[in-house]
Each structure stands twice: as C-alpha cells, then as structure tokens.
C-alpha cells in the first residue's frame, strides 16, 4: 500500500515538473521578452547561471543574495535583484526602460501566466536607477 502511494506521489511530482516546464516556455513566448531590447535578450550579457537552472531556482538565488546583502553588507553578488533588472529590463522606442513588472515584461510575463504573486516590487525599483 505504501509503495503504491509512493509511486503515485512520484508520478504526480513528475507531472507537475513537466507541466511547469511547458508553461514556463509558453509563458516566455506569450510575454514576448525574447525579442525584447534587454541586455539579456540581445545576448550582450549572460546570466549568472544557466537558463534551465534560473527558471526553476531564481527565487532561491535572489533570496540567498538578499540575506547576505541586507544583513551582512555583501554587495555585487550573483543573484542581486538590481543586477537582474539591469539585464532584463526592456526599453521602449525612445530608449526609456519599461518596468519589469509591467504586463508582458520579463518578470510579470511568467508570473502572471502561472498565477504566482510577485512581491519584490512593492519595495524594489522596477527600472535601473541609482
């Protein structure tokens, strides 16, 4: 009985993982950021880790950096949210940065699609500033 429950759990987990991979990639297409004007989209800079890792674990990377930065004063670390924004912010026709949490932009694109609330920008700037 226990073995069967375990198998069921495993199947469920696999299904969730597959589903999330599928939804992430289609969310990106929907968001349209791939054709954007950000540094990341134009391949001028590469991310701190590979894309597959970041898709699943970016929140952990950011959280780790935030604790180090706020409580220990460690700056310029991989996973600094301000660096995420520097690379992933798109610019409009006039070269003005578009907030990353605006509909269809890098952060909001996926988060809206999968229905995960995005709390970072209640406090953090959404475009690179000083």
């Amino acid at each position: 009985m226990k073995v069967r429950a375990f198998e069921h759990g495993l199947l469920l987990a696999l299904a969730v993982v597959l589903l999330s991979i599928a939804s992430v990639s289609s969310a990106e297409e929907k968001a349209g950021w791939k054709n954007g004007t950000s540094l990341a989209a134009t391949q001028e800079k590469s991310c701190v880790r590979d894309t597959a890792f970041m898709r699943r674990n970016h929140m952990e990377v950011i959280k780790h950096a935030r604790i180090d930065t706020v409580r220990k004063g460690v700056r310029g670390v991989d996973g600094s949210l301000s660096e995420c924004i520097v690379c992933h912010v798109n610019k409009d026709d006039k070269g003005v940065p578009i907030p990353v949490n605006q509909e269809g932009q890098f952060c909001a694109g996926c988060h809206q699609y999968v229905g995960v609330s995005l709390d970072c920008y209640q406090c953090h700037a959404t475009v690179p500033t000083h």
Partner: protein
Amino acid sequence: MNNTQDTNQKRRQFLLKGAAVTAAAVAPGVMLHTAVVAKPLGEAVTDAVRWGMLIDAAKCADGCDSCVQACNDENGLDLLQKPQGQAEDLWDQQIPKWIRNVKVKDNLSGHVTNLPMMCQHCEEPPCVDVCPTTASFRRADGIVMVDRHLCIGCRYCMMACPYKARSFVHDVVEHKLTRAPRGKGCVESCNFCVHRLDDGQTTTACQDACAKEGHDAITFGDLNDPHSEVSQALKEQSSTQIRADLKLNTGVRYRGV
C-alpha cells in the same frame, strides 16, 4: 560553581597571555589597528569597524536644513507623495523622516540649540530588543537597520526608540530608488547611508551637505580606529550621548548640547 569560576579564570588568563604574545610578536612598539579601507564588495562586514558620528550643535546653523534635504534626496524620501485626500497636517506628522531638525530652548537663559536628530545606532538598541521578527537588527559594523523582508509593520520599535528616530510607510510607494527600497507597511530609519559604505565610500549624505554649506557640524567615521577623524575629535573635546542615562552606548555623539 567554584569550578566554573576557576575554569573561567584560567581561560581568561590564557587568553590574555596569548593576546600579549601575539601583540609582541607582530611588531614591538607598533599598535595594530585597521585604518578605514574600502571593504571588498563581495565580503561581509565585520566588527573591526564601528561606524559613528559626532555632531557639533554649536556649528549647526539656525534655519539650515541642508542635511535633511540631502538625506531625503539620497534615500528617496523626497519621492514620497501625500496619499490622495489626506489632510496636510496628518501627512506632515506621518511622512517618513530620517533626520529631524530639533530646536531646544533653555527657558532660564533663552539660549537656543539646533541639532539634527536621527537613529543613534546604539550598541544596545531597544528597537532590536523588542522586534518580534528580528527585522530590526544591528549589523556587525554597528549600523542599526530594518530588514524589510522580515518587518511586519507592528511599530513596536517606534514605541521603544527613545529618540523618535523611526518612521512608518503608510501607503503604497510609487517611485523607488534601487539604493533605497521602500514599501507600504514597513518601518525605516537612518542607516548611515549604508549603500555608500558598502560601496567603499566613507561619508554620509548629511555630512557632505553640511560640509558643503561650510558648517562642518557633522564628523563621521570609524569609532574603532583611534586615528579616524571622528575618534580624534571625540578624544580632543568632551561630548555627550543624548539620554546617556539609558546606557545604550550610542554611535552618534553630540557636542554643545
């Protein structure tokens, strides 16, 4: 009990001897101390440095608020907007202020003293004592800060602070700076321009503004370094801690009050 005391004594003596040997071995006649050197970006702060400030109220000019303006500009406080429909006087009470201009009048002599009042960066901060979520904390280098990720906005620290140094953000914040994140429902206060210090700079915005005005009432630096400007200034002349009776060992000291 005696045994424990014995052990403690022995341990203490051992440590003292060890320290003496190390000191002699390093360089006879030369004291070891670290000058303020820019901390590498990717390293954690340590208690080798304790940031502190000396404010000379005698040099603080009546009617001048350049330090407050500079602080507001540096930390994005001037970007805050009055919530729609809120009364002007309520907004004036609630708008976050990291530095307050305080005017003290001696009723007997009529002498008026002006001084900027901000977070005193206590060694024993009451705000940290009372915080139920450890959001209010003291960094290794002596800066008392709020970790907004953990702050639940209970405002217990505001009640505990004897200096009225903390503010609460009551409404959604539209315009934010990268260097000074801010959002509804969190408490905040002066952090000695921590983004500058982490970046390797050694001055605060208020200090720079005061010097620019030619008043030079604010001296800032490392209290642990006996050769720093602030340590030298503190050594030369007497200074006071506001509410010294509370024994908080403040990082901000005043002269001429």
